[in-house]
């Protein structure tokens, strides 16, 4: 892979000459990222007439900018309204929304934007300089390894449900059951679909996201006059530029946190089929695991916003690596980019970096420039966007319901999805009222199907030999790490109890 200073400088110059286009693309990306039901893949498909008509470099600048911006935008509604714009920002709700309720919405938004930027930039830089080595990771991350990584994410159910373990586990189990609806991964035999063809491809994630989060949250909102606590409302009214600066300081006090959670996202993103939602949940779980104050997660702490946001933007870098290096798209947006690149006659895979290294590395340069642009366009907006939560809930809640129902309908155009969303809204509302954790339910819905697919595939490859799960060196290392991560909280708790009892007897 022929990387030179000349290529990088040419690419920076090219990107700076299209700064206006990057501003447009990132603005669109942030807006669609924040809207549940609208994603970068749908948007890029709608804009194919444009990307097919212009030069491939210009098309890539536009698509890559829009793609990374959509990852950044997802956090906005997660933080302010407890409504994730997409699966990748669902984990951001865990601490982002509690921060907003405390009147720290502006700081939380800044944390989200800075973490997205740092996570995205660091992983883009790593991708530029270590591309051949990073791409090799895909050769070691097969179904068995993915099973373990997914289990990291699924163990988060126990963590988020620590207030009431039994109810949390029930919610998580219900989520796993819902995730099992649809055609099976080997023979396409429908299960639990009740004959509805709309469920053959599984329960649509958007309907679950919007129902469980947006609709149920809007119903809860209507029971109060404001999203904010009284103290939080006072703080938000007085908020100015100082809070933006506070958010920036908070972020850079946790620079290493932003970097390592971004790298988790990068590694997970490289695996074709894995996505930002796994990356965000695993990063959150790891962040909580290695925290000195894990009990504060879920109450609104900066690390709980940084980890998922940095990871899902790191994942955006990783997502494009299989497309560029081996010519296989890692996700839907990458598949649409493949259409454009193929149309323009671009040879993907190793030859790309021999025949047209500028285009290959240019993708990551575009990411760097797009993140830099977004930081300057988004940070000043946090002061104003965060005021959204001051809107009285009798006005806000109906708007949320109306907009998100459009989002539920848009991806597939089924009326069925609207009804399904409302059903999940009712389920979410009942869960919230009765103390069942909706995030635990969502983790089951998102990660369950992926876990099943990878388990089934690993078993089929091995001829149904269960020992396959401990047959790979990389997988075994991950199993040990998983066991350690499960044991650490108990060990820490035991040591704390012992120290406390010693202190009491002393």
């Amino acid at each position, binding site marked *: 892979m022929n990387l030179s200073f000349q290529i990088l400088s*040419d690419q920076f110059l*090219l990107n700076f*000459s299209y700064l*206006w*286009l990057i501003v447009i693309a990132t603005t669109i990306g942030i807006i669609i990222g924040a809207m549940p039901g609208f994603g970068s*893949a749908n948007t890029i*498909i709608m804009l194919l*007439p*444009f990307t*097919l*008509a*212009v*030069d491939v*470099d*210009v098309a890539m600048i536009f698509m890559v900018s829009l793609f990374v911006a959509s990852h950044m935008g997802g956090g906005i509604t997660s933080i302010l309204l407890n409504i994730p714009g997409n699966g990748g920002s669902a984990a951001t709700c865990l601490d982002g929304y509690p921060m907003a309720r405390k009147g720290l919405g502006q700081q939380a938004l800044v944390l989200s934007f800075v973490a997205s930027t740092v996570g995205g930039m660091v992983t883009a830089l790593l991708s530029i300089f270590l591309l051949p080595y990073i791409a090799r990771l*895909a*050769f070691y991350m*097969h*179904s068995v390894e993915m099973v373990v990584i997914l289990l990291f994410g699924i163990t988060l159910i126990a963590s988020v449900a620590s207030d009431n373990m039994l109810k949390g586990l029930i919610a998580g189990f219900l989520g796993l059951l819902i995730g099992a609806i*649809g*055609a099976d*991964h*080997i*023979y*396409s*035999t429908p299960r639990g679909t009740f004959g509805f*063809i709309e469920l*053959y*491809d599984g329960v649509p994630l958007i309907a679950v996201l919007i129902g469980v989060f947006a609709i149920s949250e809007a119903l809860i909102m209507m029971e109060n006059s404001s999203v904010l606590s009284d103290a939080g409302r006072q703080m938000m009214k007085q908020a100015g530029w100082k809070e933006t600066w506070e958010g920036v300081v908070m972020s850079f006090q946790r620079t290493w946190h932003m970097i390592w959670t971004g790298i988790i996202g990068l590694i997970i993103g490289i695996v*074709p*089929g894995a996505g930002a939602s796994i990356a965000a949940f695993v990063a959150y779980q790891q962040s909580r695991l290695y925290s000195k104050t894990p009990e504060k997660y879920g109450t609104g702490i900066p690390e709980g916003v940084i980890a998922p946001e940095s990871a899902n933007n790191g994942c955006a870098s990783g997502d494009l690596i*299989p497309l560029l290096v*081996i*010519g*296989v*798209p*890692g996700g*839907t947006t*990458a*598949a*649409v*980019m*493949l*259409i454009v690149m*193929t*149309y*323009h*006659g671009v*040879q*993907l*895979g*190793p*030859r790309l970096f021999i025949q*047209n290294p500028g285009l290959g590395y240019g993708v990551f340069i575009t990411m760097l420039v797009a993140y830099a642009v977004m930081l300057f366009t988004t940070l000043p907006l946090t002061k104003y966007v965060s005021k959204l939560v001051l809107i009285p809930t009798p006005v806000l809640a109906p708007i949320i319901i109306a907009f998100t129902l459009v989002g539920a309908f848009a991806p*597939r*155009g089924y009326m069925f999805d609207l009804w399904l969303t409302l059903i999940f809204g009712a389920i979410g509302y009942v869960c919230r009222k009765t103390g069942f954790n909706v995030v635990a339910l969502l983790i089951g819905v998102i990660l369950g199907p992926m876990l099943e*697919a990878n388990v089934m595939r690993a078993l*089929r*490859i091995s*001829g149904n030999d269960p020992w396959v799960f401990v047959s790979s060196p990389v997988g075994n290392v991950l199993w040990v790490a998983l066991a350690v991560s499960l044991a650490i909280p108990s060990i820490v708790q035991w040591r704390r109890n012992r120290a406390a009892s010693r202190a009491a007897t002393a």
Partner: protein
Amino acid sequence: MTNMFNRRHVLFAGAGALAASLAPAARATGAFPDKPLQVLIPTGEGGGVDQAARAFNRIWAKYLGANFEYSYFPGASGQVGYEVFISKRPADAYNILFGNIGPEMIMYATQKVKYKYPEDFVYLGSMDVDDSVIWVGSGSKFKTIQEMVDEGKKREITLSTSRLPHPSTIGALALAEATGMKVRMIPYGGGGPARSAAITGEVDGCATFLSSSLGLGDQARFLTVFNETNRAPELTNNAPPVNAALGTKIPPMSGQRAIAIHAKAVEAYPDRVKKLSDTFQQVFSDPDYKAVAEKAGTPWEFIQYGDAASCQKSAREFVELADRYRALLTATK
């Protein structure tokens, strides 16, 4: 790499593209079509069918006098798309389905579907013939199909595939039956992950359509082609046809991308359907089509017009093949 495109070019190109996509191009050619055709694709966006459909329709629009709007309904090996097309799309000839006869008729034969062929839909015409192949990653120890067969007699060979109901799956199973090798097909739910699994060495090789793997370059070593001749030897390291290499008698296992329409539309709107058929055929003699088809990744050697009768013959052959291998393609074994 070029920096010659300036802001004005981009704006013109964007405005032109937008105008083209919005223009009511049908005005001059009569009553049908007077609005865009709705194209339903039963696989994911960005996949092989999507790329081929978009390339084809770019030229077809000139003759048909209408533009196209796309929707995607992947799931259950294409069943979701067909069910939606039959049960939810009006039978007015404005709604067409762009699919692949081979995999989707095998799916029809092996899964419990709610529609009937040819009572509910028919294929109007096909646009290419894409052969099934088996290839391995560049790091694989298999240099020839004979080596793979020999190894397959000692242990089970794993081959990735996008979905079990697929001509390449039947090809691999027929190969196993004919040679005594053992093969296990591993469905990955999509062409991309299936190709990735073979390149990264999770499985021994990949069974798929040829055109979807041509972009992989040196990362893929083609071992055999399931047809009587290899129509693209220079793109496939001159891989031998399976029967020539192994002395077997396996029938061609090819996919044909094709458009389908409601059977009711054929009865109710014969004029519309005739116009669709006639203009569909005109595309193949348009010199511009070669350029856009190749840009979309389909070698020109694969482009081949097939009329409704040949599509029907092919569809029935795949149903028969699927019946023969039903036990291996479904959970009944």
